[in-house]
């Protein structure tokens, strides 16, 4: 699971009012290089919740993202590289996503988060 996906996921449990962001607990992760596409990064940037990306990247040991980000930074190659790396090149293989409200853990195995809700959570 990449941090792009993590940035979009919100806890779906019945009654939860603010299920975003899910806290990332990572036991195993890998880096897979992919080509940088500046157009994509500039297009997706407005949809990214920056503080969630920042926290998730830090959980994976990547501390190169600025505390805050705004669109003007998208003209900087250096910023784009860091943004690209955090968003698309870090893959969580094993770990869990934790609901910020209930503490419920959604396990991640082989890179696949298990988001299935139990009977009483629907």
């Amino acid at each position, binding site marked *: *699971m*990449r941090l*792009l*996906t993590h*940035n*979009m*996921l*919100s*806890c*779906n449990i019945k009654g939860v009012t603010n*299920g*975003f962001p899910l806290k990332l607990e990572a036991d195993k992760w890998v880096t897979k290089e992919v080509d940088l*596409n500046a*157009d*994509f990064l500039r*297009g*997706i940037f407005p*949809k990214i*919740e920056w503080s969630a990306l920042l926290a998730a990247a830090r959980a994976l040991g990547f501390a190169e993202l600025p505390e805050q980000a705004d669109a003007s930074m998208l003209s900087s190659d250096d910023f784009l590289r860091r943004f690209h790396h955090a968003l*698309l090149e870090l893959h969580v293989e094993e770990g869990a996503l934790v609901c910020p409200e209930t503490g419920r853990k959604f396990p991640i195995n*082989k*890179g*696949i*988060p*298990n*988001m*299935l*809700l139990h*009977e009483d959570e*629907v």
Partner: protein
Amino acid sequence: MVFFIIILGPRISERALELLNLPNDGVPKLLLDIGCGSGLSGETLSENGHHWIGYDISQSMLDIAVEREVEGDVLLGDMGQGLGLRPGVVDGAISISAVQWLCYADKSSHEPRMRLKAFFGSLYRCLARGARAVLQLYAENMNQSEMIMTYAMRAGFSGGVVVDWPHSSKARKEYLVLTCGPASLQTALPKGKGEDGEMCSDEDDSDDDENQTVGVYERNRPRKKLKVNKKGKSKGKQWVLKKKEQMRRKGNDVPPDSKYTARKRKAYF
């Protein structure tokens, strides 16, 4: 059976992607593949340069997707429980042969209606305004088709059904094409593929003359208009007062005239 799916699968997902009507600007989009299985349809999305998030309820299918090293992220999830995505973040969604399963009561014994509602509600929310969802599905009967369409409309989608090869029982494919937001020129559906009597061949992707688009469903009804007479003038206050007087003379029960009688109202409600 599996061979059959592998041959036709990419063709169906290509068509679904085409029906998404994404802008042709060369910018990769973020898409969903609902019921992504082992990643066949997702590969079509990757080949076209897009990023995607796949959902499937089968761990074993997803394991295959991971083994095949698909480029999208895949999640183990039940679409009938809702997609769990933030509002407005997705540029489009496809689904190949999966959504009809919402119509069956699943093992958790939750009503299909609740599941359809949860699915379409969450799908509508996570799509950006103007984005589309294209759901290729095999509805068992009209009831299922209608039920699926009803819940899509209730969630706020406008759209309709595109039918390719309607006359071939083997090749016939239905695509539910939904747009997030009100109907407009942008939501106009393309024509389905297939010519009367002609055998469809897998090689033949040419545009055919006889086309079929079945059932366009508008979420918004047309606006009410002012009544106008033949000269194009609207029937004004004088006309109304005259009519009321006529009715009174006939002996009908007519409310008394007041300052509100035939007062100008907005042209639409």
